C-alpha cells in the first residue's frame, strides 16, 4: 500500500491538473460561443451568393464557365481542416482518418492527389506520411476574418483554374451541436451540383453578360465555400475541446474522490497501529 505522503502528492497533482482542464473548458466555451456567432454572421452571405449562383448557372443555359464543367480527373485536390493544437478529443483524428481512408481507396500513387493542409495536426500527419502537401497553413486565428483567409482561398481556387488539380474536395468537422460534430466531405470544384436555396429561380438581366458575371461570381462562391467550412470547423474545434476538457475535469474529480478514500483509510490504519503500539508498550511495562 502506498504511503500517506505518496497519496497526498497524487491528490495534489490531480487537483492541479483538474484546475487547468477546468480553465481550458471555460476558455473553449467562450470561444465556441464567438465561433458560433461568426458562423451565423456568415449565413446570409452564403445563402445569397448560392441563390444568385444557382439562378445564373441553372437559369441561363448559354452561360458556361470552366468551373462548371467536369473534366477528366488526372489529379485530385483535398482540403483538410484540422486544429493547430490537440487536447480536443477525437476532433483531429476523425478527419485525418477519413481523409486517409479515402485516399487509400481512391488512389494508387502519390502523384494522383495533392493535399492542402490547414492546421498543424494535418500538416504534420500528411508530411509524416510523405504525402504530397502543396499548401500548408498553420496559426489560423480562433476568429478568422475573411481578409485573413482570402490568400489561402484565392490560391486554392486558382490552382483549380490553372489545372494543378481537376477536382477539389474539402474535409472538415461539421458543427451539429455543442456535443456532436461530424466529419463532412464536400465536393467544391467543379461546381456541378449547385442547388438553389429557394424553389423559385429569378431570371436576371446581366450587365454586361452572364459569362462576365460568372467569371467574378464563381471564384467568389468557391472561396466562400472554403471560408464557410473553416468557420464551421472552428466552432467544432472549440466544442470538441470543451467536451474533452469537461470529461477530463470529471475524471479528475472521480480520481480525487477515490484517492481521498484510500488516504483516509491509510491515515486511520496508521493511527490504529500507533495506538496498538502504545497499548502494547504500556502492557509490557506492567
Amino acid at each position, binding site marked *: 500500500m502506498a504511503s500517506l505522503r505518496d497519496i497526498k502528492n497524487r491528490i495534489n497533482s490531480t487537483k492541479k491538473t483538474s484546475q487547468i482542464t477546468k480553465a481550458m473548458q471555460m476558455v473553449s466555451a467562450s470561444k465556441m460561443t464567438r465561433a458560433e456567432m461568426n458562423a451565423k*454572421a456568415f449565413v446570409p452571405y452564403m445563402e445569397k451568393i448560392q441563390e444568385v449562383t444557382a439562378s445564373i448557372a441553372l437559369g441561363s443555359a448559354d452561360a458556361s464557365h470552366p468551373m462548371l464543367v467536369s473534366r477528366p480527373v488526372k489529379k485530385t485536390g483535398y482540403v483538410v481542416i484540422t486544429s493547430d493544437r490537440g487536447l480536443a478529443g477525437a476532433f483531429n483524428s476523425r478527419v485525418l482518418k477519413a481523409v486517409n481512408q479515402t485516399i487509400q481507396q481512391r488512389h494508387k500513387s502519390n502523384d494522383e492527389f495533392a493535399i492542402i493542409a490547414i492546421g498543424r495536426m494535418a500538416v504534420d500527419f500528411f508530411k509524416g506520411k510523405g504525402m504530397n502537401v502543396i499548401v500548408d497553413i498553420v496559426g489560423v486565428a480562433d476568429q478568422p476574418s475573411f481578409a485573413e483567409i482570402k490568400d489561402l482561398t484565392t490560391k486554392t481556387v486558382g490552382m483549380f483554374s490553372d489545372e494543378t488539380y481537376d477536382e477539389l474536395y474539402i474535409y472538415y468537422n461539421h458543427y451539429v451541436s455543442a456535443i456532436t460534430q461530424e466529419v463532412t466531405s464536400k465536393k467544391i470544384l467543379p461546381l456541378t451540383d449547385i442547388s438553389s436555396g429557394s424553389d423559385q429561380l429569378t431570371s*436576371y438581366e446581366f450587365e454586361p453578360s452572364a459569362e462576365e458575371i460568372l467569371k467574378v461570381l464563381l471564384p467568389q462562391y468557391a472561396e466562400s465555400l472554403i471560408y464557410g467550412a473553416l468557420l464551421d470547423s472552428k466552432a467544432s474545434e472549440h466544442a470538441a475541446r470543451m467536451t474533452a476538457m469537461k470529461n477530463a475535469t470529471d475524471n479528475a474529480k472521480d480520481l480525487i474522490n477515490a484517492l481521498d478514500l484510500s488516504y483516509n483509510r491509510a491515515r486511520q490504519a496508521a493511527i490504529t497501529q500507533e495506538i496498538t503500539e502504545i497499548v502494547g508498550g504500556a502492557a509490557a511495562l506492567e
Partner: protein
Amino acid sequence: MKTIKVSVVTPDGPVYESDVEMVSTKAESGELGILAGHVPMVAPLQIGAVRLKKENQSDLVAVSGGFLEVRPDQVTILAQSAEQATDIDLDRAKRAKDRAEQRLNETKRENVDFKRAELALKRAMNRINVSERNI
C-alpha cells in the same frame, strides 16, 4: 418617393441595411443608378463607393469588388469586404496606401505582385476617399 430595401453583406456579416430612394454605384460596365421597381439584374462591381440616397441625406459604403443583385423590391450587394464611411480605419487605409505605393515603385510591371499592389492601392484609395467623403 418609393423606397427600395438595400443590404450590403460580406462573409464577416451584414454591413449595411436600410430603405433608400436610390442606389448609385460603379459597375464594371459603368455608373449605375437604381430606383425601386428596377428589373432583376446582376452586375459585377468595381472597387469603389456605393452611394445610398435617402430623403435628405446620403450614406456612403466603400466596397472592394463583388457584385450587385437587383430585384424589384430589394438590392443586395455581395462583396468580400465592405465598410460604411464611419467604420473605416483611416490610419490603416493610409498605411496600406503607402505600402502599396512603395511596392509599386519596387516591382516590375509584368510581375504578379505589381498587379496585386495596384489592387491594394485602389482599395486603400477608395477607403480614404469614402472616409473623407470627397466623391
